[in-house]
Structures are given as structure tokens and as C-alpha cells.
């Protein structure tokens, strides 16, 4: 029989992050969000707890845990706030993971101890203004000149790319053309502050307002030849692998948001009075919450199973795509229902459910849109 109960260590981690999110994040995050400010002190404490090192071995400053442990931490954070959850998700899964999986020993020694401790954040720049879902169709180039790569181009919507503690961004760039005339894509590590690398002012976003997102420009940016991450020409395949596991983490984030909607709604439905009784006594309200709970539970099972396959070294792409699709679309639904339960207060930014509603939308877009997930699932089924 499959067993979806957590091991005692995973459960202890989950509880620890739950307490942290409740005690440290919840009381202050609304203010950061309102001011659109990055919560450095919270991120520092997440680093001190080892969250940024969860899936990495101790020799690189990691916690010796696994990717599933990371997902549990992301879920518990997102239950309270998505900005800090995506900061962790992107920092680990997009910032540090490419270096850990594909980098040279020197690159790992140089960057991972800082990244896994949370003292430094890394970013991953894939998306461009005219290429998102079709991420192979990029215009950014990297040309080899002697011992250096010269990078030119621009990236959009890059998470964690412009904080005071951002140390690097790994970008995908064209490094040539293969025999068949297709672009050859490679990944190049660009340290923050390299001349010619500029970070645009932060976006005005609908949600994730305490998370850091920027457009990046590369103007004759020169980095040493050894900043190539992984093999030349393997950049596309590498980021597909990174995105595959990232989907499990985004599903976990979505489940956290869905659970947060349930937590808030139960409390509110039991206390808010209308027509002389708590609104939760109306079946129209209690059934909404029952449905929200059911969606959350199913999303959690979906990401647990994809995560279990990943840990077991089995194929997990298909399950990860399903988990991401179901959990994120359900998160949008839960956020819509939760704000409905809150009535007018649900439209006021000071209520967490309003934040959840604003934060939920992007889940259907980032790290592969819902349509892209459906394309992947349908392709595996041999349709079309």
C-alpha cells in the first residue's frame, strides 16, 4: 500500500516551519507587502533555520535533507504568505539547484555555501520579453571571446534578481547553432555587479509584493569562460529538468495557499455573524469550505506522490505536471471562495485572504502556465 504519512523527521520539520510562519512571518508580512518591501530579516531567519540548504548535502553547507523536505517548508510558509515562500522556492530551486546539479566542483565550492545558508540569493533567468512558454526561442546571446563569454540581451520577470543579497543570476543564452541550424542554448553564471549587467527597478505587481522581481539587461557583459554552467549546448535540457522538479515545489506552494484559505475561512465563518448567527451555519458557506478543504487535500496528495517518485529516482514529470496544474488552479478557486466568505473584508488588503487572492493568480503562470502543463500531460497520453 502506498503511504502518504510523513516520516517523523519530515513531520518535525513541517511543525517547525509552521511555528516559524505563525510566530515570525504572520505578524509582520502584511506591512512588507503593503510597502512592497523585501523582508530581509525574515529571509535571514529562514537561512539560519537552514531552509535554503534543505535539499543539499552538508559538504556544501546544506542540511542533508531532500527535495520533498523543501516542498513541505514551502507549503507551510505559503499557508501564511506566498512572497516568502516563492523567495525560498526560487532561491533554492532556481538559484542554487542548477549550480548543484550541473555546475563544476569549483562552482559548487565557490557559490553553494553562501546560497545554501541564505546569506546570498541566486536567480535563474530564462524568460524574455518575447519568449516565455516557448523558452527555447530566446534572443540573448553569449559569444566566446578568448577566455571570456560576452553576454548580450535582456530577461524579464526574474525572481530574487535585485535584492541587496543577490549574488548571481544564471541565464540561458544562445551560444551558437547546431548542424541542423537550431539554436544552441547554454547556461551562463553572471555575478551581480558585473559591468554591463543592470537590474531595472522592481515591477509593480498584482501579487507577491514582498518578493523581488526585475527585468535584467546584459550589455557586453564579460564573464570568465569557466562560468558556463553544465555542458555547452545543454542549457535547454538542463532547465527543463530544473523546471520539472520546480513544478512540485510550486504545487506545494499552491497547496499552502489553499490551506491558508481554509484556515482563515473556518475561523471567520465561525465568528462572523449575519442574520443573528454565524455565517458558517449556512450550508452555502460551510459547503464552500468543505470543497476548499477537499481541493487542498487532493492537491497535497498529488504533490506528495510526485515528490515520492522524485525521491525514489523514478520518472515524475507527468505527475509533477498534474500536481502543478491541479494545485494551482485549485488555489485560485480557493482564494476566490475565501474572499467571498469574507464579504467586503475580503476586498481589503489588510485581510490575509485578500493577499491570498492577489497572490494566487500568478501560480497558474509561473514555471510553466496551466496550458503548458496540459500540453505536457496530453503529449504523454499521445494525444494530438
Amino acid at each position, binding site marked *: 500500500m502506498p503511504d502518504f504519512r510523513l516520516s517523523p*523527521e519530515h513531520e518535525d520539520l513541517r511543525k*517547525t516551519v509552521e511555528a*516559524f510562519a505563525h510566530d515570525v512571518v504572520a505578524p509582520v508580512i502584511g506591512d512588507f507587502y503593503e510597502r512592497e518591501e523585501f523582508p530581509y530579516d525574515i529571509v535571514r531567519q529562514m537561512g*539560519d533555520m*537552514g531552509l535554503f*540548504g*534543505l535539499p543539499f548535502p552538508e559538504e556544501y553547507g546544506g542540511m*542533508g*535533507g531532500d527535495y520533498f523536505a523543501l516542498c513541505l517548508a514551502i507549503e507551510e510558509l505559503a499557508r501564511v504568505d506566498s512572497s516568502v515562500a516563492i523567495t525560498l522556492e526560487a532561491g533554492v530551486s532556481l538559484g542554487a539547484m542548477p549550480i548543484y546539479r550541473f555546475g563544476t566542483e569549483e562552482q559548487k565550492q565557490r557559490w553553494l555555501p553562501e546560497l545554501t545558508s541564505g546569506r546570498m540569493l541566486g536567480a535563474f533567468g530564462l524568460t524574455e520579453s518575447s519568449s516565455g512558454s516557448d523558452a527555447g526561442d530566446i534572443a540573448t546571446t553569449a559569444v566566446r571571446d578568448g577566455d571570456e563569454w560576452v553576454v548580450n540581451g535582456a530577461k524579464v520577470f526574474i525572481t530574487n534578481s535585485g535584492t541587496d543579497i543577490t549574488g548571481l543570476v544564471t541565464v540561458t543564452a544562445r551560444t551558437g547553432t547546431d548542424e541542423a541550424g537550431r539554436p544552441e542554448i547554454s547556461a551562463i553564471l553572471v555575478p551581480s555587479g558585473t559591468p554591463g549587467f543592470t537590474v531595472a527597478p522592481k515591477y509593480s505587481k498584482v501579487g507577491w509584493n514582498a518578493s523581488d522581481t526585475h527585468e535584467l539587461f546584459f550589455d557586453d557583459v564579460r564573464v570568465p569562460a569557466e562560468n558556463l554552467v553544465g555542458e555547452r549546448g545543454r542549457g535547454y535540457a538542463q532547465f527543463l529538468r530544473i523546471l520539472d522538479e520546480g513544478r512540485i515545489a510550486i504545487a506545494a506552494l499552491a497547496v499552502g495557499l489553499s490551506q491558508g484559505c481554509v484556515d482563515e475561512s473556518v475561523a471567520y465563518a465561525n465568528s462572523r455573524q449575519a442574520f443573528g448567527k454565524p455565517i458558517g451555519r449556512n450550508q452555502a458557506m460551510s459547503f464552500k469550505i468543505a470543497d476548499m478543504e477537499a481541493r487542498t487535500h487532493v492537491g497535497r496528495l498529488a504533490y506528495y506522490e510526485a515528490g515520492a517518485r522524485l525521491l525514489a529516482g523514478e520518472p515524475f514529470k507527468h505527475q509533477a505536471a498534474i500536481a502543478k496544474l491541479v494545485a494551482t488552479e485549485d488555489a485560485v478557486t480557493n482564494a476566490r471562495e475565501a474572499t467571498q466568505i469574507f464579504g467586503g473584508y475580503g476586498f481589503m488588503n489588510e485581510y490575509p485572504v485578500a493577499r491570498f487572492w492577489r497572490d494566487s493568480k500568478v501560480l497558474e503562470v509561473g514555471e510553466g502556465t496551466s496550458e503548458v502543463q496540459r500540453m505536457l500531460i496530453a503529449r504523454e497520453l499521445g494525444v494530438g
Partner: protein
Amino acid sequence: MKIAVCVKQVPDTWAEKKLTDADRTLDRESADGVMNELDEYAVEEALLLTEASGGEVVAVSMGPDKAEETVRKALQMGADSGIHIVDDSLHGSDAIATSLVLSKVLADKGFDLIIFGSESTDARMSVVPAMVAERLGVPQMTFANKVEVAGETLKIQRQTEYGYDEVESSTPAVVSVVEKINEPRYPSFKGIMAAKKKPIETVTVADAGVDAGQVGLAAAWSQVDQFSERPPKAAGVKIEDDGSGGVKIAEYLSEQKFI
């Protein structure tokens, strides 16, 4: 430096606390158990002291089977080993009995410091540290918001209502800490994994050299005879401001003995 930290398992701070109907002691089943919050500060202080100048931290808890979780939590934070005092006869023990058992277990083990929280969140007597110090015949350096050890000299800042006193003693000593002293760490995953391999010694009342008749509900100096639910929150008082609002609020507050 060898440090013992006394940690108590209490019902989750957010949970509603209940007494059992059977013997009017705390219903420990109805709420999740957590480490008493101030005891997290005590563990943190012990870890900071040993991280700075070397040594060993032993977490000690007296409580039912479940209290092992609280010892384990201290180990996850970084303590080296644990002692769990568990015995059916301890059920219903008062502060006097608790301090007796703790002091018997702590005596003659070569601890330089024994660190406590200054108060539990359930019974809130704030007396156990002083009682243990008295029983062991060592200085009681209570309500510390700062602790410094140099050789065999211990200096603390004792928090008072108006500021703090500087107090100095020799070691060994008992210290109790207040919340201002530090920011307790959350266990890391590495700490959680490492704690699985750390030893927890289980000690009974007999092992501690205490007679079972001296502990438990029957031996408690006071017993709860009766209790009733806290009355529901009364409606607030509304004061219309007709120009004398300030005075009326002040009168109300003084009536209620707030000012």
C-alpha cells in the same frame, strides 16, 4: 562548561486549556504539547554559552511519556543529551514535589549552571527555579536578561520592574531567564536528523532516590477542589464623548483598578 536546562512540556499556548473532571488536574490529552516558551530561551542561552566557550548541554524534563517530545525538541535545537523523568506516581505533582525530583536528579552531576525558564505558561508559579536552587544550596540567579560566565564567576542582569540589577555569584548556580535574553533558534533539519541519534536517559522516581509518597497529587500541599469555566466575555462599556469622555474613561479604569 556543563549546563543542564530544565524544560517543561505545556499545552500549546494557542490552545484552550482544560482541567479533567476526574481529578481536576490539567488535561494534557486535549491539547498538543509544546516546550514552555521561556524554556526555549533557556535552551538557547545554554547553547550560546557552550558554543562560545565549549561544553555540554543536557536537557531535563519531568512529565508524562509525551514530554519526551520536549526533550527531543531541545536536542533538535542542539542540546547534547536528555534526561526524561517519567513515572506514574508523578501525576499531579505540585511545585514542591517537582523541585524535589528535579534537584535530586540534578545533584552531584557536576553541572556548572542549571538554566530554567522563569515561568511556565500553564501553572505559572515561577517558583521552581528558586526551589531547586534552595534544595541544591547554590545561588539563585533568577530573572536574567543577560548572562556572563568567566571562570567560576557568574554575572547576570536581573530584570526588575524599573530596569535591572547587576548580580554576581560563584558557580555552580541556578539561572532563570526572561524573554529579553535572546532570540531562540528554530531547529534546522540537520538538527532534527542529528537529534534522532542523541541519547535520552529515562529516570523513574525510584532512580532519583525519591519516595513515591512525596510526589503526586496526594502529596500536593494544595489541591483543586472545584473549578468553573471562565465566564463568557461581557459586552464592553461604551462611553459617548460629550466633552467629558477622558474623565469618564479615567473613572472607569480606576473603578476597575487598572489605574
